[in-house]
């Protein structure tokens, strides 16, 4: 072989002796300089505040932050409430509701979103009209639509009354007044709001599938149902994941939904953890408990999101 290695160091120095101007050095640093403000902002305003919240959860802060560490009383109280199911503590209600709400909300949004996307993807005339109809709820805040939903679900005003007036006297739908069912009305309104967005994601995914694969499957004799079940839906896997992340974060952050629709529900039976946190921090002046519940919420979120982030970034990054 002909390779003759020059002494590395000498070569490197030869490169370095050329004066590097300040301008060039700046040019090299530019990407980091550009990213830095955002990064610093996130570190301070998100992670700094998370630390602050964690700290407060170990104090006995009441109305205002108090910086004397006093131990884990807030967590002990939450822990105690976690198992108080009869009568249910507000915390117990909140976390069990989050379970019910989270599963149904994410599940139904995905199912409905996927169904609508598949239906819309059948070369539908009027897609241009239907698509915004499914999407528009995302554009409205719940301050706007909460009242309308509240009416519609109220047996004395809405659907039940209307159907009675139309002659269906036996119709009965009073979930919003029922402490065991009220959370399902929150699910209905939530699904109404977010499923269009999920539909758009799936629609984008469907449109992105190589049509040759579809043709191949049809030539292979797959029926439409088989085609979707065996080929298309498995290919949408990355979208399921994205949709899951988007929905999970919306589910965990859901707050105004509950307030606008149910004002907390009969006996506080519609509370979600974010309502709990807001109540204790701002209304009950038990900031330590509120902070502790926020910490637990964040830990729950991390338990879902961090593994996802880890696998995503590991796989994809070069």
């Amino acid at each position, binding site marked *: 072989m002909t390779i003759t290695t020059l002494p590395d160091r000498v070569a490197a120095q030869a490169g370095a002796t050329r004066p590097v101007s300040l301008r060039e050095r700046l040019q090299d640093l530019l990407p980091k300089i550009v990213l830095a403000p955002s990064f610093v902002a996130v570190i301070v305003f998100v992670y700094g505040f998370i630390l602050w919240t964690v700290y407060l959860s170990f104090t006995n802060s*009441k*109305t*205002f932050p108090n910086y004397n560490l006093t131990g884990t009383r807030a967590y002990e*109280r939450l822990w105690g409430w976690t198992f108080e199911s009869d*009568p*249910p503590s*507000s915390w117990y209600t909140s976390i069990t509701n989050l379970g019910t709400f989270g599963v149904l909300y994410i599940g139904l949004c995905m199912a409905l979103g996927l169904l609508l996307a598949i239906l819309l993807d059948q070369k539908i005339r009027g897609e241009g009209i239907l698509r915004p109809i499914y999407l528009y709820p995302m554009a409205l805040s719940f301050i706007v639509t909460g009242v309308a939903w*509240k009416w519609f679900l*109220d*047996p*004395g005003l809405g659907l039940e009354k209307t159907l009675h007036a139309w002659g269906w006297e036996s119709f009965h739908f*009073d979930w*919003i*007044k*029922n*402490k065991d069912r009220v959370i399902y009305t929150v699910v209905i309104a939530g699904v109404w709001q977010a499923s269009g967005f999920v539909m758009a994601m799936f629609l984008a995914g469907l449109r992105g599938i190589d049509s040759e694969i579809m043709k191949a499957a049809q030539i292979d004799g797959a029926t439409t149902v088989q085609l979707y079940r065996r080929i298309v839906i498995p290919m949408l896997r990355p979208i399921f994941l994205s949709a899951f992340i988007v929905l999970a974060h919306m589910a965990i952050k859901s707050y105004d939904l509950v*307030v606008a629709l*149910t*004002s*907390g*529900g*009969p*006996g*506080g*039976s519609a509370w979600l953890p974010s309502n709990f946190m807001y*109540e204790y921090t*701002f*209304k*009950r*002046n*038990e900031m330590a408990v509120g902070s502790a519940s926020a910490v637990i919420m964040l830990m729950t979120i991390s338990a879902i999101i961090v593994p996802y982030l880890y696998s995503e970034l590991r796989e994809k990054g070069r």
Partner: protein
Amino acid sequence: MKSIVKVFAGALLASTVMTGASLAQTKEVQMLHWWTSGGEAAALNVLKQDLAKEGYGWKDVPVAGGGGDAAMTALKAMVAAGNYPTASQMLGYTVLDYAEAGVMGDLTETAKKEGWDKVVPAPLQKFSVYKGKWVAAPVNVHSVNWLWINKAVMDKIGGTEPKTFDDFVALLDKAKKAGVIPLALGGQSWQEATMFDSIVLSTGGADFYKKAFNDLDEASLKSDTMKKAFDNLGKLKAYVDPNYSGRDWNLATAMVIKGDALVQVMGDWAKGEFVAAKKAPGTDFLCYRFPGTDGTVIYNSDMFGMFNVPADRRAAQAALATATLSKSFQSAFNVVKGSVPARTDVPDTAFDACGKKGIADLKSASEKNTLFGSLAQGYGAPPAVANAYKDVVTKFVHDQIKTSDEAVKQLVKAIADAK
């Protein structure tokens, strides 16, 4: 790049122009409140005009929603930022909390000059005076233990004023038989607890109420009397319509106004609704004390908490406080709001029959020391306790707590926990 620069420059420019307004701050009061409905806004406008006569502007910071919840959140954020408003609408223990945090101003000078100590009932001063310093100007006194009855319905069923709890139940029965909804209730925790305040007073009497709900005496809380009060609450629950859950209080009032329901147990702010609907006391509706509570007043009071603003804004603040406690404003405002003046020397001439009764009751209760803070309304105990109390009541009403035994147990535990 250019257009990014433009956006930034635009934002900067816009903001520099806007901050020019801060010079005017010394001649205006910044007022945080949640009185945004037509009637309330009209009442506050009186104050605004009074101040305008003195040469002070009014910077309105209205944040409605949740009976002041949103406003209190905004206030907390403003205080955390160090941007104290001149004044904020506040309730009971919240004033003391903020005073303890050292962010409240000092109105003592004005108070001395105007002799507030003598005309404002002592129980109110517990909340408006912190460590000898006046920190808040009470605007009104609401009383909670009222019945609001539709007179037409009352006449139709041939009812008379109930004097005891049993009378009340009998009256409700009559209404039920006549096919009207006997009791209009909004199934939200604060409304249920507000009604329960009256029930406890009626069931246990004045001393019991004070011991249990103001002193948080554990023996009283777990006494049989409390258990009986829960039983009574359970009885009343049988007279509400099935759709009561989650209903706003003013919708419940509207049921009484329209004659769909006979009676609502609610604070005197309900009268504002009757007035707004052009109904007159005695002819269209009746106001009775909750049976068995005559002579005693469970109150709450809207106060304007005054914040520790820089010296150059204090003149405006003092002017606001003076105007708030002026007899003319107290009269004009409370006529509209349904409440009674926070000072006992305001002539009752402008008030209707219910208002006159309210003023007289307040005066006598104040003299007899039977003026008690409402626990449901945040005047009986700090918010943590009050809300724990509301939790238990609402869970009882909505069958999550099934027996009065269990309710008492939960109440004791919840209050101990929150203390």
